[in-house]
């Protein structure tokens, strides 16, 4: 019998606010792992600091709850030491796009084969609602004493220019769709970003569930809301780069699509390119046995406890 979604839960009390978008992401993550039938001991969820940082404790897989903004460096260290592990990094928008934005960009350059989820609610929840890097210029959610003076970072556009090879946006309250995207991201060969739009019912009283769902702009004739969220796949969008020479065109199209915000918010896969070698493949060019004998799996001593390394050649080079 296979593992069920609920097998990926710990019995801990989940202490997010009622209605938090994290619940949707949490459910989607369990569904995705169950769909992939990943063995819990082979999965590592790495998080940063913030409400989303607690995710690993609620998941019945290995969890590494790290420092604010440092989710990716920890995740990369784990993955490169033992590439057979399935490493999923999950952090907030403040974590990955504010304090950790340098790592966000640098990680793109490496294309390490891991999945990075950003919980994007445009506020710093755990510190009581300050503006996060994805809050649009001029908005004033309820904790802000005055409207936001900073323009918003566009994570999709930034990921494109930084070198992420799978870039998707999800919406936390569409759990099925989010789970599908997570499955694709985990299966992707290379670095995958899933930026998840997530209402914060406590502090973001602007980008709410109703706002995403378009309840503020109901058609007076039909009485139907006009949702802002729509799925790229339903528009015939093709994100996949199949040959090197179509990369520029697909990248530019995705960049253009990434600029859509406000009236229409696309979700789904913006861009996917498996032609770029992963960091692991790049390492293997000079360390051919890396995949089978990565740093965490190498024999470093013999039975007597003596080092496995043969030092003669090193000394020979330094001999006088």
């Amino acid at each position: 019998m296979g593992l069920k979604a609920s097998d990926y839960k710990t019995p801990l009390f989940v202490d997010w606010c009622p209605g938090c978008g994290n619940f949707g992401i949490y459910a989607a993550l369990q569904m995705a792992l169950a769909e992939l039938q990943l063995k819990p001991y082979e999965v590592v969820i790495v998080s940063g600091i913030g409400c989303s940082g607690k995710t690993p404790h609620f998941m019945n897989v290995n969890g590494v709850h790290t420092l604010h903004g440092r989710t990716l460096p920890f995740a990369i260290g784990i993955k490169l030491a033992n590439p057979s592990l399935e490493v999923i990094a999950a952090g907030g928008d403040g974590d990955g796009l504010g304090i950790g934005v340098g790592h966000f960009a640098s990680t793109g350059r490496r294309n390490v084969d891991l999945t990075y989820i950003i919980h994007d609610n445009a506020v710093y929840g755990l510190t009581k609602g300050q503006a996060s890097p994805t809050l649009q210029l001029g908005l004033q959610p309820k904790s802000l004493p005055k409207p936001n003076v900073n323009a918003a970072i566009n994570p999709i556009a930034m990921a494109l220019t930084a070198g992420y090879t799978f870039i998707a946006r999800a919406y936390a309250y569409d759990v099925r769709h989010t789970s599908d995207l997570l499955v694709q991201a985990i299966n992707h060969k290379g670095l995958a970003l899933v930026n998840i739009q997530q209402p914060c019912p406590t502090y973001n009283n602007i980008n709410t569930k109703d706002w995403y769902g378009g309840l503020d702009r109901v058609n007076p004739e039909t009485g139907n809301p006009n949702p802002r969220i729509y799925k790229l796949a339903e528009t015939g969008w093709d994100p996949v780069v199949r040959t090197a020479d179509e990369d520029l065109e697909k990248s530019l199209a995705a960049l253009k699509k990434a600029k859509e915000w406000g009236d229409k918010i696309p979700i789904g896969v913006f861009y996917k390119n498996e032609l770029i070698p992963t960091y692991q493949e790049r390492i293997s060019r000079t360390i051919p046995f890396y995949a089978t004998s990565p740093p965490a799996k190498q024999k470093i001593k013999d039975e007597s406890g003596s080092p496995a390394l043969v030092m003669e050649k090193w000394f020979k080079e330094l001999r006088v």
Partner: protein
Amino acid sequence: MTGKEFNWMIGGPQGSGIDTSANIFGRGFGYGGYHLYGKREYHSNVKGLHSYFHFRVSNKPVAANVNDVNLLAAFDAETIVRHIREVTPKGGIIIDKSDLNLAISEIRTLPSELMKLIMKNHGSKRTHKTIIDLIEEAKEKETRVYVVPFLDLLKEVGDEFGIEKLSRVTRMKNILALGTTFGLLNYDASLVEKAIGVVFREKPGVVKMNVSAFNKAYEYSKQNFDDDFPHKFKKLDIHEERIFLLGNQAVALGKVLGGCRIQTYYPITPAADESEFLEAHEVFKLQSGNGAILVIQTEDEIAAVNMASGAALAGARASTTTSGPGFSLMVEGLSWAGNNEVPIVITYYQRGAPSTGLPTRHGQDDLRFVIHSGHGEFPRIVLASGDMKECFFDAARAFNYAEKYQMPVIHLIDKAMANSTQSYKVFDLSQVKIDRGEIASRDDLQIGKYKRFRFTDSGISPRAFLGTKGALMWYTGDEHDEIGHISEEPLNRNQMMEKRMKKLVKAGEEIPSEEKFNFFGQEETKNIIISWGSTKGAILEAMELLRKEGFNLAFLQIRMIQPLPSNSIERILGQAEMKIAIEMNYSGQLAATITEKTGIFMDYFILKYNGRPMTTTEVYEALKKILRKNAEKRQVLIHGS
């Protein structure tokens, strides 16, 4: 007469091959059976500013520089200006003919304060004073001056190899300086040719050209300077197998031997050389099959330390390497590693601080910083090596400490070791063992049973690596329970704090004394020196000089700063009449730490913080003042250029 000891200095603009010539010089003498010690001084600059190498060669082991320069080989005028006064009476200067008529004021790279000082020192207010004027003054002290037409010799080399453009051969000025040097010393040219072959082994064409340049200068020197220079050296009949290495190479070797398989770093002087050396040797032979170290250049030191922690959690022996500014960025990660009992090794190359400070110069300013860095109280081990050999063995051993006691280990090195070279008898590796500490047993690993932070009597919880079948584990920077989940409960908090902290006590009890400190001399000696780090060589040599004059001193060299071997220190210092702290910093940081832990105060301080390592000569002089009872409590050393 065949010499016993010789001090050579080669200087010129940065980027002109100083290092290469020093390497060849050292190897040339090394092949002849001589012992070697050499230090490199350079500016924080890529090309053009002054740089030099000060080499000491002896038929006995040498471990530091002395003030003397017996022969100064200059390939620019600035070297003459800066170092001429260091040349011993009856010593020599090799100078390029085309530099002779240069006015000192024309040397654009000389800082104005130095220019003024030089004018003052040479008793002249004239700004048009030239190199010839300096040379004439030196000749009055019987300094020998060997003027070599470098350009003419370079042209000859160019002609021989069909190279018309002089700029393509000017780089070989350094080899001409070497050729002239060895000609004066009447040393076996074939040994130096061998060294040239080894240093340029990947470029056979370059070897040929350099050997030719070397021989042209060697012959020129023999023909024109005859037997004028009093120092002569010949090959010794020695058959001991020796290596000649830099401090950063010693650390790199120790790390791979000790099982380090992943190293992260962000470029910083003087730490980066170690990582580059490792990367150039990333694949290596194991007893069966091959191994490799993965070297990752990160975007910053924050990523470097945390990536290393991630790798350590997955079960690799992991390390990062840095200097002061980089370590400052790492301390939040250090605190996380301490809280999560992560066995990472941080190699810390100290340099002159604060801030960017003296980025390419020496200092040991950071002892107090590394024992307290990071918010909160958590255990860490701090090692301080005193020479290249200790660098090697400590680098290997650091991983054992880290894994056995499950805590970060900071290995303090300094610029003086990182960029200095020394020759040693090939290290005996039989004492190197790998101990990975307590690893979770099968019983620990039953599904649902494993507790990463299980309370035990020793405070050490058996470790499982991420990905271990049957074991799930959680880590968090928050205070956590035995499983690794967040806990803010007061009782758990106390238990966890005590669990972590008692590991340090255990480490202090279990680690043998010989790995914590060295004691040189007799315990009943009344005058005891306390020091740490690369001052070791100069102190031991100064003690030997003083012993010959009838002054007895002992030396307690502390190698483990944390946990500090306080009991041993109390026992040894308790009976001393005079305690002398020698440190490369302003305040005497080890002395203050000892006072804090033992209540023992030092009687004298010999301190230095001008960015240049202590020489044997100045330590000897400072100690002698103390022994003759005519020293201030605090002496500040100033030698160096």
